[in-house]
Structures are given as structure tokens and as C-alpha cells.
């Protein structure tokens, strides 16, 4: 057919090729519009590259692969949050084994550590809120050492029976369930003390042993880390943790772009996704650069001490040497490197 015959009365090209060209352009435009509205800036998963899906477990990667993985995340998170995000892959430092000590006598329950941790580590802000540190309020007992032998039996001529006097009817101090939601006008409260709990970075971590995909492991500096890309969300590690210190992302984390901390670490505070477990990492994005964890830095009463357990001059070693340090009575041989102490 001659070319002239493919034109309509107005002289427009109506050939099949022209039709497919136009149809293709329209479809592409529609698909692009639809996909951009599906993806949106908040949809981290939608921007996940194939390379990210098929990457190896982080600890099995070569240095080059690790760098590529970090670069990919940097690019994706920078686009998502509209700012320059860095994803660091710094390995553990040599001759360093991190340890942490908390003076339970000094803690005033202000929860500055909780909020600093949330900000530093890009935790989900709402629906559902995730906090790696929980401060549990405990009722202070009022047993008095001087009154220990002052009580006497209620039955005059018998050496047994209900005791009266001395420490009788005085509270021994108990943990009240749900008391990490305390909202007093001011802290510390007269009749309470506070018990912050977070990951204890066990030397012999049960969570590592149960992970079926080996995504959680102990780094040489003693920090138990998680490769979020390999976590399958089975929650086995949560059940195995004797302190229930791990948190699960039931939904997509809500992290507003303006509140996002752009200085991240691959194994630490980079934004997480739905269906993965996360926990305290002793702020490894800071501590592997010689800085204190955010909670230590922010504590207004200096109740938190942090340092290298291999260094006899470190704060944490001094605490172990000189203070009254507690361990769990029912020790499961986990050897936590997080110690509670009193002066």
C-alpha cells in the first residue's frame, strides 16, 4: 500500500505503527503515574532494588560487596528522606570489648535515655511506637535494717504466730506490671525507683543460637547485631532472649523525614522495614567512632557508664572493681555485658 493511503481526511498518520506508538506512550505515562503514586516517598520496600533482594548475609560479604550494599542503601534512603543519608559499614575495632554499667541508685526515671535512643536510632515514632530502652518503675520497699529483730509474735506465750512490730506490714518492694507507662508530675517519685532495661549484649547470646538464618550474630567488640535484610521475622530470637529486649516491627515503621537521623550504620540505626526484629546496638554508629552511646551522653545524673572491658582503666572496669555489681540469680550462663550497680 502506498504511504499516502495511511493518512486520514485531516492528513493525520493513521498507520498501525503510529497507533502502537501513541498507545505505548500513553500506557507508559499511565504506568509511570500509577507507580509513582504507589511508591511514594514513604515506601521503602517499593524502591528496594533487585540487588538488595539477592544480596548475601552481611557477614559473608567481601569488603567490596559490603561497600556496594551500603552505597545502595545510601542512595535509596537519601531519595526517600530527601536528605543526604550516610550508611556506614565500620567493622568492630580491634582490642575493644564493650561493656555497660548502670547505677540503679542514681537513675531518676526521667526517660531522657529512652527519647535520645529513639531519636538517635531512627525508631518508629507511632503506630506502633518502638523503644529499645524501657524504664520500669518499681515500688520502693520500706524494710528497715534497724527493725529487723524488733518484731515479736502476736501470741504472748508462744514463739510463733503472726508477727507484729518491727518490719511487719512494711512493703518489701515489688515490680508492678505495666509500670513503664508511669506519668508522674515530677521524677524521681518518693516511693519508687527505676529500672531501665535494654539489650544486655550477652557474651553467650541465646538469641544468636536460635536464629534459623544466622542474621543475628555477635561482632568481635561484643555487640550482638542484626542484618535486617536477612531477618525473616520468625521472632525466635525474641523468645530466646532472657530479658525480652528485642522489638518486632509489626507494621511499617513511622519515621518522619524531618526527624530521621541521617548518620546511620548498616548493622545499627538505618531505617528498618516491616517484619524484622531490632534492638539496642550500644549505638555502634557512634561507639565504633569513639563516641559514647546517646543514652550515656544524655543521662542528666550520670547513672550510665560505658567503656572497654579489656582496658583496666576504663569506667566500666572501674565500676566492676569498686562498686556493688548485681547479677541475675537464675543465671543462664549468658554473661551479659550490661551491669547494674550501686555505690
Amino acid at each position, binding site marked *: 500500500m502506498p504511504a499516502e493511503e495511511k493518512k486520514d481526511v485531516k492528513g493525520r498518520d493513521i498507520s498501525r505503527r503510529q497507533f502502537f506508538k501513541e498507545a505505548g506512550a500513553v*500506557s507508559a505515562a499511565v504506568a509511570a503515574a*500509577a507507580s509513582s503514586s504507589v511508591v511514594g516517598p514513604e515506601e521503602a520496600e517499593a524502591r528496594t532494588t533487585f540487588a538488595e533482594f539477592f544480596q548475601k548475609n552481611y557477614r559473608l560479604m567481601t569488603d567490596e560487596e559490603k561497600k556496594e550494599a551500603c552505597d545502595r542503601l545510601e542512595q535509596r534512603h537519601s531519595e526517600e528522606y530527601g536528605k543526604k543519608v550516610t550508611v556506614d559499614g565500620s567493622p568492630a575495632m580491634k582490642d575493644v570489648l564493650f561493656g555497660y554499667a548502670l547505677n540503679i541508685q542514681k537513675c531518676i526515671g526521667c526517660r531522657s535515655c529512652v527519647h535520645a535512643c529513639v531519636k538517635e536510632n531512627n525508631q518508629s515514632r507511632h503506630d506502633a511506637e518502638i523503644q529499645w530502652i524501657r524504664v520500669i518503675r518499681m515500688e520502693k520497699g520500706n524494710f528497715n535494717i534497724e527493725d529487723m529483730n524488733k518484731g515479736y509474735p502476736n501470741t504472748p506465750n508462744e514463739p510463733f504466730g503472726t508477727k507484729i512490730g518491727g518490719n511487719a506490714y512494711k512493703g518489701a518492694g515489688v*515490680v508492678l506490671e505495666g509500670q513503664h507507662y508511669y506519668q508522674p508530675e515530677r521524677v524521681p517519685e518518693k516511693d519508687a525507683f527505676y529500672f531501665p532495661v535494654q539489650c544486655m549484649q550477652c557474651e553467650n547470646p541465646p538469641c544468636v543460637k536460635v536464629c534459623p538464618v544466622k542474621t543475628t550474630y555477635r561482632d*568481635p567488640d561484643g555487640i550482638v547485631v542484626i542484618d535486617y535484610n536477612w531477618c525473616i521475622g520468625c521472632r525466635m530470637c525474641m523468645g530466646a532472649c532472657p530479658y525480652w529486649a528485642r522489638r518486632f516491627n509489626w507494621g511499617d515503621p513511622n519515621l518522619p523525614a524531618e526527624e530521621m537521623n541521617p548518620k546511620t550504620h548498616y548493622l545499627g540505626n538505618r531505617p528498618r522495614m516491616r517484619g524484622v526484629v531490632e534492638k539496642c546496638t550500644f549505638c555502634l554508629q557512634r561507639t565504633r567512632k569513639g563516641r559514647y552511646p546517646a543514652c550515656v551522653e544524655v543521662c542528666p545524673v550520670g547513672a550510665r557508664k560505658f567503656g572497654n572491658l579489656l582496658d583496666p582503666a576504663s569506667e566500666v572496669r572501674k565500676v566492676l572493681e569498686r562498686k556493688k555489681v548485681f547479677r541475675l540469680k537464675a543465671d543462664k550462663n549468658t*554473661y551479659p555485658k550490661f551491669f547494674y550497680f550501686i555505690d
Partner: protein
Amino acid sequence: MSEDKESEVKREGVDFSKRAFIKTALIGGIAVASGAVIAKKIASNIPNTGLTKASVSDELQQDRVMKDKEFVVMSKEEKERMVKMFVSEYSYKA
């Protein structure tokens, strides 16, 4: 196009031509894509109270676990033994 061919593709007023088919398919595709986008937007904007409940339940579980713990003061020997173990078992494998 001859009149015979034209009547072949337009039986009972319905257009069976290739062009009409592609046109319908395209419109259908657009409709499905738009529907999916709208459904996703709506679904993502519905607050999921179940997630918060599950999360709070995890936190309360920590309370229950920690409530059962009993702490005892470590003796000097215990502390020394523990530190010795940390130091002697340290090894760096990057």
C-alpha cells in the same frame, strides 16, 4: 476497506476490530491500575490498632519477664573471674 470487510468486524453493532480490542484492553488496564492505587492508598491510611496492640503486648511481656528476675550482689571473686573470662576469651576476627 471494502464494505464486506467493514460488516465483518461490526456484527450486531459490536466492533470486533483489532483497534477496538486494544482500545478496550488499554482502558481496562488503566481502570485496574487506578483501582489498585486507590485501594492501596485507602488501606495504608487506615490506622491499624492491631499493630499497636501487638507491640504493647510485646512490651508487657518484657515486664512479666523482668518481674521474675532476682538480682544478687556479685562477690569480688565472681567479678574478677568474669573479667578474666572476658579478657582471655577475646579474639578478633573481622
